């Protein structure tokens, strides 16, 4: 995966994206008393036909980032380029053609479909909105889509309530697929599903990527799921990217202490190997994004934190002898074989 060089390989380029939400208070006059730093200077790229996995806890800003890329919320500053075009801050009208190419799949299969509309109408919505097909033609296309995602096309007239969670996600996928987009942003699409159903939906997404050359921005908090679907991974914490790179590199040799902690918390497939693994328990809670910690945002909870960490923000850059694609934002990245649990405030399980 190349970095900035071959530009026609890159579908989405996010540069220094910042999104703050104002906090208002006041008795008589509503003043802005603070900002929620949801996304704070994030840059990343998504290559064509590949999947970028975005990992983070609740409050890390990954959903906000997704919505900024999709153009659903305006950015505070920064740039989003899609297919070579700058789509930051486009008007609703100018954004419409772009919307055919960027689609979203949502987390909750129970609330992402309008309960009062029939499934055929829901899937046919993109055709109706963009006026690309009507009547019998539209019905045919919708039924093709339903078949492609594994639904019975004869259920065209049913209501979402008559489908299971996994089937509803398929409906969401069908809807997103209708206009053959280039990018599908998946906001935790399998988090609300049972594990066996997760497998089906993930396999479906993988098949579709192969068939249609789709790019995915795949957001999740489950590391194993992300490992399975992604080509490259970015780890977010409190609005910033802590580490990013091809998945083999990030999972194989994580350099950011947060990444290490996350990986150590994931249930391991092999219990014996897990027994020897160090378990890192982070102290404290995720701080509020209204008043993020100074310097490196992770430093209050980091087992390796030093004075420098509270003073200076680390830049996202290549560390030591890492390959050029593996970027970390840390002053004291984790070395190979280092026992993080022994350093400072962590506890061994």
């Amino acid at each position: 995966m190349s970095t900035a060089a071959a530009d026609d390989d890159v579908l989405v380029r996010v540069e220094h994206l910042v999104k703050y939400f104002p906090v208002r208070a006041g008795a008589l006059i509503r003043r802005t008393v603070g900002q929620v730093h949801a996304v704070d200077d994030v840059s990343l790229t998504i290559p064509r036909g590949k999947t970028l996995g975005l990992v983070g806890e609740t409050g890390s800003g990954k959903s906000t980032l997704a919505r900024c890329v999709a153009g659903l919320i305006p950015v505070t500053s920064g740039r989003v380029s899609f297919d070579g075009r700058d789509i930051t801050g486009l008007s609703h009208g100018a954004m419409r053609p772009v919307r055919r190419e960027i689609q979203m799949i949502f987390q909750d299969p129970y609330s992402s479909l309008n309960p009062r509309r029939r499934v055929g109408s829901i899937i046919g919505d993109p055709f109706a909105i963009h006026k690309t097909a009507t009547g019998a033609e539209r019905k045919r296309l919708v039924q093709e889509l339903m078949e492609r995602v594994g639904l019975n096309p004869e259920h065209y007239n049913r209501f979402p309530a008559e489908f299971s969670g996994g089937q509803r996600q398929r409906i969401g996928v069908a809807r997103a697929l209708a206009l053959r987009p280039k990018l599908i942003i998946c906001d935790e699409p399998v988090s609300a599903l049972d594990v066996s159903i997760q497998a089906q939906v993930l396999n479906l997404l993988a098949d579709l990527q192969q068939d249609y050359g789709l790019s995915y921005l795949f957001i999740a908090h489950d590391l194993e799921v992300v490992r399975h679907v992604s080509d490259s991974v970015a780890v977010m914490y409190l609005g910033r990217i802590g580490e990013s790179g091809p998945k083999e590199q990030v999972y194989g040799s994580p350099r950011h202490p947060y990444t290490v902690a996350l990986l150590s918390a994931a249930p391991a497939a092999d219990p014996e190997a897990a027994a020897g693994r160090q378990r890192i328990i982070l102290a404290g809670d995720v701080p509020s994004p209204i008043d993020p910690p100074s310097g490196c945002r992770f430093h209050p909870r980091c087992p390796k934190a030093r004075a420098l960490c509270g003073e200076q923000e680390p830049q996202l850059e290549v560390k030591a002898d890492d390959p050029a694609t593996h970027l970390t934002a840390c002053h004291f990245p984790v070395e190979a074989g280092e026992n993080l649990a022994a350093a400072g405030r962590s506890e061994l399980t």
Partner: protein
Amino acid sequence: MSLTGLEIVAEEVPSDAPVVEGRSQWQLTWRRLRQDKVAMAALAVIAIMILLAIFAPVFVAITHHPPNIAYPLTGETAAGNPVPPGTAGFWLGTDGTGRDLFIRILYGARISLFVGFVTTAIGTLAGVSVGLIAGYFGGVVDLVLARFTDAVLAFPYVVLALALAVVLGPSLPVIIGVISFFSWAAIARVVRGQTLSIKEKEYIEAARSLGAGPFRIMFIDILPNLLAPVLVLATLYIPTAIVFEATLSYLGLGIQPPTASWGDILADAQNFYSVAWWYIVFPAAALLITTLAFNLLGDGIRDAMDPRTERIFAGAAGRRRRGRLRRGALTGGANFPNAAYVPPDHTANPPEI
């Protein structure tokens, strides 16, 4: 998916159900409503009232007593008082000037039902539009519209009716205007509240991500979710409108004599308290039966739309469904016979002027 090193291959079990059209919310509601005996009785009563009103001229032909013709000879006692029911072909007796009371009640029904339906229709259309726009667009638009709605709701209707009656003179269009003016506010407030909460749902965000414009979202995605409460509100507003019209007529600010209106009749009846009980009782009964029927029907529709709630007067089907008292299962509004006035949604904002 390699959680355990095994490939879990799960296949979708093909559904072999025949092609079934999903039953829409309306079909389900209607089926439940049909089982509610009280609501069905109310519906029948309303239907009868409407028929009686429409076929009033037929009764005129039978009794030979047009509504505005006085019969001083046969219709009044020697002292000039109304005659009791059953005398001289007056089925329910006569009124203060010797007119057939029954016929006048029928023609009064025409006015009441007409005003009730028309004002509710206007008010619902306006209220839904305002509520949707205020709720969806938010910001300044919402601020202005919501404040305006609250002001109208809190405004004493009598004061406005007084003022308009003086300036424009009382007449049917003025009454319809005044009553509609107040009806839209209650509906707008509820619709706004509902819109605000529906707007946050993911399927709305999904629609926006597809590129849908605001009006498409409002009318195709949000509105279908609103129709249920709006229908209940509208049905329950009709009796309010009827009572409103009757009150205005009673005060002399409504339909002017000699046109028959229930309020008018009851106003004149006050002069004959001690000598003509029928003059009060029968029009009052007509009014009461009509409003009661609409209230019961509105209640029934509300219960039919929300099957989780228990009903006090439910039939056998309801009894079978009733189990332990589930937490939150009893909502007072659904269980309890309803007001013509639906409490506004106070989760949005407390009323302020």
